[in-house]
């Protein structure tokens, strides 16, 4: 059974319409977007190409465009426009206008194995 850690990202109104913002969750950078029709989506912030900050990208029609070299990513699936580029997506719940991010413990534990010193933050 998958367990999730929950994070409160604050009010949806803190993300300007049609833009993204970057949050740091357990040391992971996560880009959260609010489309003009109200959809909230969350993806990992780093473009797999050259680590461009996706939260600064322009979005539209369910895609975000990396500001560095224009690689595109589907906000719903994480699938990139380039072969073999796919990024992690996260689930966001809306509760009374607040955004609650579900962060799979599994991902955190993997990172922990990769970097033992991070255990201290638990």
């Amino acid at each position: 059974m998958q367990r999730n850690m929950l994070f409160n990202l604050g009010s949806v109104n803190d993300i300007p319409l049609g833009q993204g913002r970057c949050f740091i969750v357990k040391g992971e950078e996560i880009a959260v977007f609010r489309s003009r029709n109200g959809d909230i989506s969350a993806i990992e912030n780093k473009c797999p190409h050259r680590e461009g900050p996706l939260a600064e990208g322009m979005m539209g029609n369910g895609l975000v465009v990396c500001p560095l070299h224009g690689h595109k990513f589907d906000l719903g699936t994480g699938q990139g426009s380039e072969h073999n580029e796919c990024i992690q997506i996260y689930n966001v719940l809306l509760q009374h206008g607040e955004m609650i991010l579900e962060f799979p413990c599994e991902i955190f534990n993997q990172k922990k194995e990769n970097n033992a010193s991070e255990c201290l933050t638990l």
Partner: protein
Amino acid sequence: MKKRLVVIGNGMAAARVVEEILKRRRDAFEIVMFGAEPYGNYNRILLSNVLNQSQEAAAIMMNPLSWYEENGIKLHAGVKALHIDRENQIVLGKRLPNGVAAYLPIEKSFPEGSAVREAYDFLIIATGSRPFVPPIEGFGGQGTFLFRTIDDCQQIAQYAKDCQRAIVIGGGLLGLEAARGLITHDLDVTVVEAAPQLMPAQLDLEAAQLLKRAMETMGLRVALDTITSQITYRDDKVSGVAFKNGTQMETDMLVVSAGIRPITEVAVDCGLKVNKGIVCDDQMKTSDPKIFAVGECVEHRGVLYGLVDPIWQQAVVLAEVITECGRDAVYEGSKVGTKLKVMGVELASFGEKNPSESTDEVIVYRDPNRGIYKKLIVADNKIKGGILLGDIEMADDLMPMFMNGTKVPENRAEILFGAVSGETLLDVNDLPDSAQICNCNGVCKRQIVDVIKNEQRTSVSAIGEVTKAGKGCGSCRGLIAQIIEATIGKVSYDPREHYYVAGIPLEKSLLVREIKNREMKSVSTVFAQLADGIEDAGSKNGLASLLKIMWPKEYEDERDARFINDRVHANIQKDGSFSVVPRIFGGVTSPDELLRIAQAAVKYHVKMVKITGGQRIDLLGVKKADLPAIWKDIGMPSGHAYTKAFRTCKSCVGTDFCRYGVGDAISMAQKIEMRFQGLECPHKVKMAASGCPRNCAESYVKDVGIVAIEGDQWEIYIGGAAGSIVRKGDLLTTVNTHDDVLCIVGRFLQYYREHGKYLERTYGFVERVGMDILKAILIKDTLGICSQLDERIQEAVNAFKDPWKEAETPAYAHQFDGPQLVEVVGEVNNNG
């Protein structure tokens, strides 16, 4: 477990083959390299620049020592491999004593503890070559040099300081390069060549004579048919040479550069097959299947290569084979040709220099007055060889035709001077599948044909979407169209290429009409009304720019329609930090401004302070969250160095200080910047104002360039460029006053704003519309719209606000926020 790969050598070929291997399989091998020189590897082609001091030694390094570390390569720098124990698969090396040239043979002995041992599963020999020293009595004393390594160059440059005369032995390419280097040290240089001509490997006698004349006019002496027999010394320093013909010549120093020979001792020593070079098969394997070789030390099908192109090809095949990415890869030899510059004279040479069969055609053009000579050998309508001297423009067509065995035009004059139609002689049908079509993105013909056939892509832009071909500089788009035509008979026309932006199916004039009729003032309205509400991210920027131009005052600014640079008024860098460039009107600043900039740079830990090409100062590496504060501290307006808008106006010192200035260029430039700062345009616009036609501010190659001429007049040039495209601007008109300049420039800018395609620079715009038409509309007012253009540009100027004022009042909440830290609030099962 990883296999161990040992590479003997650390020159260009060795580093290249390792790069090719890492590119294919990053983690396949544990790599160890032996480099006899104590450096990372460097570009030997540029050594003469180190000698003539136009480049520092550090500047020609290709892979610094950190590259080896980053890629997990163990480099034994300064260690020479001396013995290969093939039975036990071990290489033995020894540290080279100080001051011993890397290419010299040294004794194969390993005093106690001195041996460096490395076991291998596979071994690559890339020992390169050493300078050839002809049998001259007395060579090696003080003041005699070879020319092969960075150390050689440094020693030559050092010694030359106390000399007046130098002799270079060898009149080949390298010898002339060495001579060029010595002339820059103010020496009286004589080149001595044993053959009856210069550059016997590349030139025929006639071209060589022409080259000799050109060299002599530059102050070089040349002695041909002259063999050096002995070097004479005075006080242990070289003092002269004696020639075989009985004559003598005095000199203060002597450089031998008489060709190269492959370094093969380590291969001979362990019993590999060696003729002139280390013998390799078509997979770059030596006679021992565990041992490969690559580069100048290799003999392949009886041929040795000393140029980079064939060696790069060898490196690719070797990497394919050793990583098993392409087990069947073969190297079948290379046809070689070179383009080079000898002491400023351009030269191209490929294939045979002289006809070998009685049926070979020889086509020659001579223009001795201008130092031009062109000669081609043609057989069976194919090029067998050629020499171009003085004018090598055709080389870019002819060398690929020679390499690929392409048929030449019936009209042989076209081979020498290009097709009458001005089109390229290259026919894609004749190119092999492996020929590279897009040089920017490395796409070959086969990849393009595959996409046409398998994915039914039939327009140039559709092929670009899949392969990236034609997406760099764009110069290959004609060739791509030819390939489509050859493959399926017809190039399809992609209407999207003519849309103003991809997401709205309208060409610019139709889009403008719709926007006006429906009074659409925001990007989201345009999407809602013209694109069924589908917001294409890539189209937002272009629409925002257009709406701002059309409705300077009423435009509804939606910040999500802006690229990040335009949201935070700074240019995003590759690490996600930003650059800050304050406006410095006309390039004139003050001590106060400089102090504030310097203090801000220190306070915000700016990573680099860089003087830009536009006469401004760039502070690089600023955090997004620090932008408002740094702008406030600097207290200057934005320089707009991040956006599709008017950027800057360079100037020279005009009449204020310059002895030659005929017009006040500084205040001209300042007025231009003051008036047009931040003005949105289809693309960036760079300007310059020069105080005289000497053009120190480079006005002729700016989008808009102003040049003062005698008689208190100003010339206005438009459509100049000096980026990926270099184009001299066209003269639009000549006017009398600063105010006239501001008026005409504004009028042109407004016309460009209204009619330019998004991301179309002025050089493309001017060529597309045509200068005659622009002059008619903007100067003669044939359409009667000048006064309207003038009014609308004034409106746009009036609407200007310095975006850095948003430091005080942000346009929206969190505009400049960096990443935000959040804490865990709970833990649940995913369905709980």
